[in-house]
Every structure is written in structure tokens, then in C-alpha cells.
């Protein structure tokens, strides 16, 4: 259960950070008219297609004392990033990035341009238009982004395996714990944890689809 709690904590941190970073990035990607935008879009989508072994391998090398990130971190805090909870958060943010940004882009792009024009004509600046028009209209996208990055981080395995070091209470997430139990042939224990994870993942995804299908909505109808 310690592992499950750790995974939840990790997933919550990652979802919060991804919303904070994802919203401005998605806003820029949705509204910029720069011709080279497709390059950035590809970069954002990369973790979708790269295997966790590639991300995990780069993360491990980058966090090491010879890597740029590791060097910086050691200079600042006196210890490396690998095998720490912070290291896991960082790797997971990278890994789940597209799961937060893609739904945000889609919903930002879906906002009716005429409303934006109207807002501008009425004298609202870019920031005000964003807070008062775009964001409220994109709430399903924001919920989807938060829930998907939470769920994706909860189910993360390969990257954590490669940079975590399997420390109980620090980096032993629920997926690693299940793997360890299967390895030690404790199939009963593994099964119990796997079922819990299955139930959580199913409920979380149900929320996403319910919100998008407007079966129910977490905010009052207008």
C-alpha cells in the first residue's frame, strides 16, 4: 500500500506541474502562427512514440554526475537526481508531457474565434481574454489533461525502473512493486495490487470519457 500511496503522490505532483507548464505551452502551440511550429509540436509529441527505455536511458545519463542536469543539481543541492523522488517527478513530467498538452491544444483550438474577436473588441487584453473566455470554455480539455497525465504517470513503469533504483517509500512505485512481486513469484500479492491499479485506472478513464461525452459535468451548466 506504501507503493500505491507513493504512486498517487507522484501522479498528483506530475499532474499539477504539467498543468502549470502545459497551459502556456498549449496556448502558444494553439495560437502561434510561426511557420516552424510543427517542429515544436513534434518535440512535444515525442514521448508518445519513444520507448520508455530511450527516455529512461537519457534521463539516467543526464542525471548522472557527467550529465548537464546532474552537474547542475549537484552544484545546487550537493546530491544527484537519480534514485530520488524529485528525479522521478522530473522524468515523469517529460514522459507524460504530451498527455497534458495534446488535449489542451485541441480544446484551445476548438474555442470559437469570433468570441476571441468579440472579447478583443470589447477591450480585453490577451491575458484577460484567456482567463475569462478561453479557459472557461476549455474546461473539459483541462480536466482531460489533468486526469490523463495523472493516470499515465500512475501506470508508468519503464522510466521509473531505469532511474528509480527501487527504494521503498522513495522510488518504489506501484508498477515496480507489482513487477518485484511477480519476480519473487508472489503471484497472489501481485494480483491484488494489479486489481487495485486496474480499478483506479478504469475509474479515472471513466471520468475523462464522462466529461467529454458530457454525461455529467463538474461545473454548473450555463
Amino acid at each position: 500500500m506504501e507503493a500505491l500511496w507513493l504512486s498517487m503522490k507522484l501522479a498528483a505532483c506530475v499532474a499539477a506541474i504539467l498543468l502549470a507548464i502545459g497551459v502556456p505551452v498549449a496556448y502558444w502551440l494553439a495560437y502561434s502562427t510561426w511557420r516552424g511550429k510543427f517542429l515544436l509540436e513534434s518535440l512535444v509529441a515525442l514521448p508518445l512514440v519513444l520507448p520508455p527505455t530511450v527516455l529512461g536511458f537519457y534521463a539516467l545519463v543526464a542525471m548522472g554526475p557527467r550529465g548537464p542536469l546532474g552537474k547542475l543539481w549537484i552544484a545546487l543541492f550537493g546530491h544527484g537526481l537519480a534514485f530520488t523522488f524529485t528525479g522521478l517527478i522530473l522524468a515523469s513530467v517529460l514522459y507524460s508531457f504530451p498527455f497534458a498538452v495534446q488535449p489542451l491544444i485541441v480544446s484551445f483550438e476548438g474555442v470559437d474565434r469570433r468570441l476571441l474577436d468579440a472579447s478583443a473588441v470589447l477591450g480585453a487584453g490577451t491575458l484577460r481574454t484567456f482567463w475569462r473566455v478561453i479557459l472557461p470554455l476549455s474546461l473539459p480539455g483541462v480536466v482531460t489533461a489533468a486526469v490523463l497525465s495523472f493516470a499515465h504517470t500512475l501506470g508508468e513503469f519503464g522510466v521509473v525502473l531505469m532511474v528509480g533504483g527501487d527504494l521503498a517509500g522513495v522510488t518504489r512505485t506501484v508498477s515496480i512493486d507489482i513487477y518485484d512481486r511477480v519476480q519473487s513469484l508472489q503471484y497472489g500479492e501481485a494480483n491484488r495490487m494489479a486489481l487495485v491499479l486496474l480499478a483506479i485506472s478504469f475509474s479515472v478513464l471513466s471520468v475523462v470519457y464522462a466529461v467529454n461525452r458530457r454525461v455529467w459535468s463538474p461545473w454548473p451548466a450555463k
Partner: protein
Amino acid sequence: MTGGKINWHKWFRGLPFVIAIFLARHEMQAQQKEIRIAAAADLKFAMGELSETFEKQSGTKVNVTYGSSGNFFSQMQNGAPFDLFFSADIAYPQKLEADGLAEPGTLYEYAVGRIVIWTPADAKVDVAKQGWKALLDARVEKIAIANPEHAPYGRAAVAALQKTGIYESVKPKLVYGENISQAAQFVQSGNAQAGIVAMSLAVSPAMREGKRWEIPADLHPRIKQGAIVLKDARNKEAARAFLEFVKSAAGRAKLAEYGFAFPEKPAQ
């Protein structure tokens, strides 16, 4: 597109037939001249040379898959198509034999694993001189070992640390690799400053340059490594022949060269 000229329907109807031919050919080749071996990660380098020599001598093609012994064991319980299993822990082949999944009488303890404390060549501590005391040095912040819950080398590492009496003081420094290769990789990448790894990896080309100190064999339970021919082996004769080759003087010399010891003769 020129696709309009091709009769796709006809083509697709012929497809299963073509696939069947390919599969049959593949099956036949496999049955004639190939054995599949599942080998523990610590055999990575030794097994490569062993199978090369065997291929030249016998004409049988050897296909080796490396991985964690525990993983292989679960896969074999569920019918993985291997002919021969070289486990880092003899308990797994023993269990396969008990479950009736292996050829009776083929179980063989092919080697005894040795463990070393390993650091990169540029490490600040000199493990070759200081031995296990190097692990107590404050500059060694992380020590990588294989996961003692399921990896035999991890269990041996913990046992050795306990026997020398430093386990409690170094425990906060320990990080766990999924298998012995990953523990080595944690040290090689610089994320851990020292590791307890298999001798067979420490003498491999990538790690040969580092500093190492062998943990005496009397400090840990013997890492008995066992091999067995599987019941469902498609090529039992060739699998047995390979096992015989490993038992031969030439086979043992190769294993010794890559840092394995043998049951009759304790490691130095």
C-alpha cells in the same frame, strides 16, 4: 496509383497460403538446426563465445536470449519455447524439474557465481586497496546492488554486507537494480559511486578498466548456477550436446575466463 492494375482480392486470398509457407519453412529450419537458450544476464559475455564455438563444432545454430532468471522461470511455466535454461539460481531449474517441465536427469550445476565490489577507474576511493571498507567512505553516496528480493547476486551482496557487519551503516546508500546488469549500469553511468556486481560482468570489455575487489566466497551463501533441458525442447539431442559442451574442459575454461568458479573448487 498503379494499384488499380493489381487484383487485390486475389492477392489477399493468396496471402494466408504464403504466410503458411513461410511459417512452415521457419519451423523446419528451427527443428533441424537450431537450439534456443534462455540465459541469465551474468552469462552475457561468456555465453556468446561458448555458443560461437559450439556452432562451429556442431553446425547447430544457437539462439541465446538474456534476461532475469525469475522472468524466464515464469515464462517457462507458461510454455515459453526454449530448449535449454541457464539460470543464475539453481532453485529455478530445480523447481521446473519438480513441476515436470524439464527433462529428468539433465539438471547440472554449471558454475558458481563470484561477486566483486566495483567502481569506475576514476573513482575517488580505491576499492582494490581498501576492500569493503571503501563502501563506508562518505564520498561513496550510493551503492548499487541487484534486488535481493529476487536476484541471487543481490541476496549474496546483502549477506556479505551483513557478515562484514557494515550492512546497517551502508543500508541508506543502497539502490536496487532490477538485475545484476542494471546494478552495474547504475555505477557505470556515475549515478552510484560503487556497486556489488557479478565477476562475470566486471571482467567484461566495458567494465574491465574499472577497479574491483572480490568479496571472499566465505562471506556469502554460494551462488549456485544451474542449467536444465526443458521437457518441450524441440531439439533435445542438440540441447543435451550443448550442455555436454559446457561440461567439457573447453567449456569450463571459457566460463572460468569470464569469472565463474565451479562447485568442486571454491573461488579464490
